[in-house]
């Protein structure tokens, strides 16, 4: 899987379709694993999506005393295996992005698995599939690099700058998340 989850925060319209869609993924038990938050609603309606970065050397897996968090050969960091998870919540404290969720009733952790049932067949995850503004995309690594170059290029061509407002100051312009 040479694909990348590509997030462009500025495009997020706060509709939370990605969260509704996350619940729809066959393996997700009807619970969403991603986040959409306001940067600061008092100042602006700017929202941003947050999801697992699928780290190459994930802190959540490293701090798991039970070795319950597995990484697939493609590099997808899965939810803790039910039979191994001891419910210690170390992963939720260890993750620098605050991604893993904890089910207090079932006493187990769950997190984004990039819709592994879809992405292993090269089908886009639910969140990226439905995102109405393409704030979340599931694209080839090459396409991502091209998009990043285009941003710079557009800023260089006079009159072709995507926007003249200063609203970007609240969030980074874009954010690439690597899956491999």
């Amino acid at each position: 899987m040479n694909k990348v989850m590509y997030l462009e925060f500025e495009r997020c319209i706060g509709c939370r379709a990605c969260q509704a869609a996350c619940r729809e993924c066959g393996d997700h038990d009807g619970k969403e694993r991603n986040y959409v938050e306001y940067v600061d609603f008092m100042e602006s309606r700017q929202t941003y999506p947050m999801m697992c970065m699928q780290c190459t050397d994930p802190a959540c897996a490293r701090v798991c005393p039970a070795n319950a968090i597995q990484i697939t050969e493609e590099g997808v960091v899965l939810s803790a295996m039910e039979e191994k998870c001891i419910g210690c919540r170390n992963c939720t404290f260890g993750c620098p992005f605050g991604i893993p969720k904890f089910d207090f009733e079932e006493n187990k952790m769950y997190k984004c698995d990039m819709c592994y049932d879809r992405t292993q067949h090269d089908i886009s995850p639910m969140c990226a599939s439905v995102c109405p503004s393409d704030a979340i995309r599931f694209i080839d690594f090459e396409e991502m690099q091209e998009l990043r170059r285009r941003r710079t290029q557009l800023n260089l061509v006079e009159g072709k700058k995507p926007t003249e407002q200063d609203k970007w100051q609240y969030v980074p312009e874009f954010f690439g998340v690597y899956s491999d």
Partner: protein
Amino acid sequence: MSEFIVKKDVKNLHHEGEKLISTHCCYCGMQCGMHIRVNEKTGAIAGVEPRYDWPVTLGKMCPKGVTAYQTIDHEERITKPLIKKDGQFVEASWEEALDLIEKNYKRLQADYGKDALSVFGGVSMTNEKCYLVGKYARVGLGTRFVDYNGRFCMSSAAGGFMKTLGTDRGSTLPWPELEHTDCFFMSGTNTAECHPTTIQWLWKARDKGAKMIVADPRETPTARIADVHLDLKAGTDSALANGMMHLLIREGYVDHEYVSERCNNYEDLKKSVEPFTPAYTAEITGVSEEKILKAAHIYGQSPRSVVMFARGVEQQAKGVDNVTLYTSMALLRGQIGKFAAGVATFTGQGNGQGGREHGQKSDALPGYRKIDNPEHVKYVSSVWGIEPEEMPKAGVSAYEMFDEIQRGNIRSMHVICSNPAVSAPNNEYIWDGFNKLDFMVVSDFFLSETAEFADVVLPVTSWAEDEGTTTNLEGRVIRIRKVKDPIGESQPDWEIINRITERMGKKEHFGYENVQQIFDEFRLATKGGKADYYGITYDRIDNEEGVFWPCPSEDHPGTPTMFKEKFDTPDGKANLPSVPWHEPDEVPTDEYPVTLTTGRVVFHYLSGTQTRRISFLNEKCPEPFVEMHPEMASQYNLSDGDEVKLTTKRSSMKLDVKLTKAIRSDHVFVPYHWGKELSVNLLTNPALDPTSRMPEFKVCAVKIEKV
């Protein structure tokens, strides 16, 4: 033809033991493509799968779309007819319910005449059903009183387009062309929340350098990304549009060749926009002169532009004027009828476009024919198998039907696919009207606030339990597929109409056996009209990814781009308007010093009858709030989350304050998707547009008190 439509090489996830059925969302005019997952053995709905190859939406869905399937088997569905006995609903058989309807309808018509009955329709249903509502009222019941909830939604756009361009098709261009547009001038449309899947097209264009100008009193998620946000006061659109045209003329941005060849009244328009200098426009609208100038230059210099608007400009007592003015901005720039350019309104309801063309409106007949035109009446009568003299005269608009109830002229109402107890302005007047009725019938699949007033509630199928066509916001006729059999004893609206009209002795005019039969009659009824569907067939829709009307014959390709050669007016030329500045019906006073505007949130649809029952959507937005600038809040000593009482001349309500700087400091905003004491339409002003009879939901004067 397979039920699952997919292009070669498009991958979808197929779960074992499930099949996919291709259809469209039940909510807004985007009509996003989707596949519904169905268990092959049990026929139960399993979920949703993106329809990546639907050309308008490319698999994208908003949270309403993703969860739409959850309404189908919802536990609160009405599964049996309900009859009110001693103030309580009890389940009844269809025979009992129909007996009661027949008895009361016949009694009321005998005592008070044919027009004692009325029908209040809606446009969140298929073309086939919308078409039947008009026929049901006029032929089945013989009453002139029929109208529909489009009066609260799109009728000003229709009126404005008719006046200016001669025909009302919501968009003059197909949506995928938006990618190639250079400038979007968007007014009174919070696209990001109300038609979210359009945003992808705006960004595709922006990635190539396109500009966005957004006029809205709030810095909505749409306005947030605009190059220029024109933060106008609610109700000042006509001044803004006049001011923009003043600058287009002054700065030499008018396409004179186009205007002289294709438009009437240019000199009059020039004279009428003369006073609207940037200073005068700024004074009325509250937008700074710099922003007005900047917007005019960006818009004027763009080779290909689209003017887009929605309820913000339409739901005003001057809605039609606003539409004619904004449309004229596109005409002065010579944009209508060309590639990636034109004018478009964002249709609010799923079939707002198709539903307003085919005779649910009090003065309209199928195919955009008019009931005051003897030729039109003659043609439609011949299709319906009645004598032209039998055709009832024009009725009155939706809100005015409630005046007729107060006068005792309307004694009974059948509400189909609508919830005016929430969506009509001045709610208390509406509720009082329902209470005054001798007999009230509601067809719905949830017990809406309106249904609670009824004497009989008839359980209807949801959108996924019947088939048919809708017309999306582009004017593209598309196909809704039946996904499963109806729940309980619910029946499609057309079957209910069959059964009531049979009781009323009109079986020979109805008695439909299937939807195809209605569609074929409907095509014939539209033949030769402005909205001509005659050449559209179910197979063509499947093969051609929808067909754009007008499409007068089966070998006609349909009309993706409107008005390429000429407009639909008698002389083929567009009519430019001359509109002086008028204030909104209500302006702030000492007693009511603040402007209240209403609208939607992304999580709910219309009166919320469906979306409030979906757990995800309700979790995200469980109740209304009043959005307020912190500058205003400090004048009333209010903090975030405090409770306030809002009072207008109509009524008052209590709400929690939500503070944000993303709104004008002299306006407050309340979303309208809730009923009873949480309905902001308790407060809204029923002042009607003189042409479209649309109420002024978007502007009223309000008093704020800390509770």
